[in-house]
């Protein structure tokens, strides 16, 4: 696994993997390096989240899908 990810400049539409195993697509990026607004595409632990929008905290982001 790679080191910390700088989410500050991730583009809208980019997909990120979270520590929980969930995957989300960026809807907007406030470019503060701390938060992303994203929509869940997959959430193995809590399938009810899929389709919902949420604020994603930078420390939860473990991977950016290529």
């Amino acid at each position, binding site marked *: 696994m790679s080191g910390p990810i700088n989410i500050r400049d991730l583009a809208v539409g980019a997909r990120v993997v979270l520590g929980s195993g969930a995957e989300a697509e960026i809807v907007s990026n406030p470019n503060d390096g701390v938060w992303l607004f994203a929509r869940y595409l997959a959430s193995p632990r809590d399938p009810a989240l899929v389709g919902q929008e949420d604020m994603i905290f930078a*420390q939860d982001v473990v991977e950016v899908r290529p």
Partner: protein
Amino acid sequence: MTTNGPRGYRPGLVDLATGQISREIFVNDDIYAEEQERVFARSWLFVGHESQIPNPGDFFVSRMGEESVILCRDRAGAVHVFLNSCRHRGMKVCRYDDGNTTVFTCPYHGWSYGTDGALVGVPYFREAYHSALDKARWGLVEVAQMCAYKGTVWANWDAAAPPFLEYLGEFRRFLDLILDGWDGREGQAELLGGVQKWLIPCNWKFPAENFSGDSYHNISHRSVDLVGVGPSGKSRRDYGELDVARKLHVAIPDRGHQTITYVLPSGHQPQPAYQNSPEVAEYFRHCEEERRRRPGANSRLIGAPGEIFPNLALLPRQPRTLAVWHPKGAHQTEVWRFFFVDRDAPAAVKNFLRDYYIRYSGPAGMTEQDDMENWNYAHAASRGVIARRYPYTYEMGLGHAVENYEWEGLLLPGRVVDLTAAQASEEPMRNLYRRWAEFMEADSWDELMTWRRNAPREAVAAK
């Protein structure tokens, strides 16, 4: 008026009967601390100009007294003024001077606030707070009242304060002189880019009283009068018409606002000015003619330095500026100076004025430099225990003000001193410190709104 209040500001420290004011009110740290509560936390303070935040998400970080505040336009277009301090541990949530953003995110633990102030992001809200934190209670602290007036934005921390225009009272016409166009059209002032910010080692009241109408200190600007800085290259200013005008001090009692102003005789014709540049001269000639065609009292008024209580100075004539004297401890002031031009003026006029403004005002201003030297060392030389025993005198012109003033059909309400022959008076300073003492004594805004008790007519007129 001069009863001995519970804290003894009148007549102990501010004695208006003899016109003596103790140096303590300038140099005493305890009085300064009390002043933050009693004056700055209750007064209407100037925050900025709407043109600084034209679009949703735009923000400008300003100050209210010692505190940093964020002036911003939310995503829906509404203007807010927030305390620039995170509700979690107080970190400054915005350390930029201005910009555009979707959220204000705290660098410390990552709390994040919307441009409407709502707390929207809390790291580990579910895990660490178990979703129990009531986010609705922990948004950015917003001012109790805000008012946008002809582009300027004002705010007040006290919900019990009267609305801004009532606070301004009859002084409104003088604020209009700077915010309306030179030709008299409403709200034409445009803010030039860049706010000058600098530190002066003196109590904030030194510049506040100077701008209240210290026409006595012209001698301190002798050097610039000699070498010339005015728009025509001569002297400091460029007002031929002042030779025929009446020069007045106008003080609005019960409000604490005061100014110098000039009144033109009725039927006065524009005088040539700004002859160094034909384009500029033509612009002002045109504006002066237009102004005279507009009905209303302001067409005969020429603005001059004035002060809106407590710490906002205006100079409606050239250099056309607003300055805020932000207190920064009893012994230091952080000045913010904003410069204005007419929105519709040709570029050549704006450029010409900008050059003149910064040659005149601010830390590199050939005129203002000498003011700063005086305020600095007046303050320093007043701090000693011996010096503090000796009050300053403000008795100049005591007893020579008239209630309301009329000249050739123009009526000016307030306490007015005719300076045309007298040159100077200290009526404006007495007015400033009378109001200051009232704030220091009063426990609530009810006590401070004397006009609602004394003169219901005036309260109605200010609406």
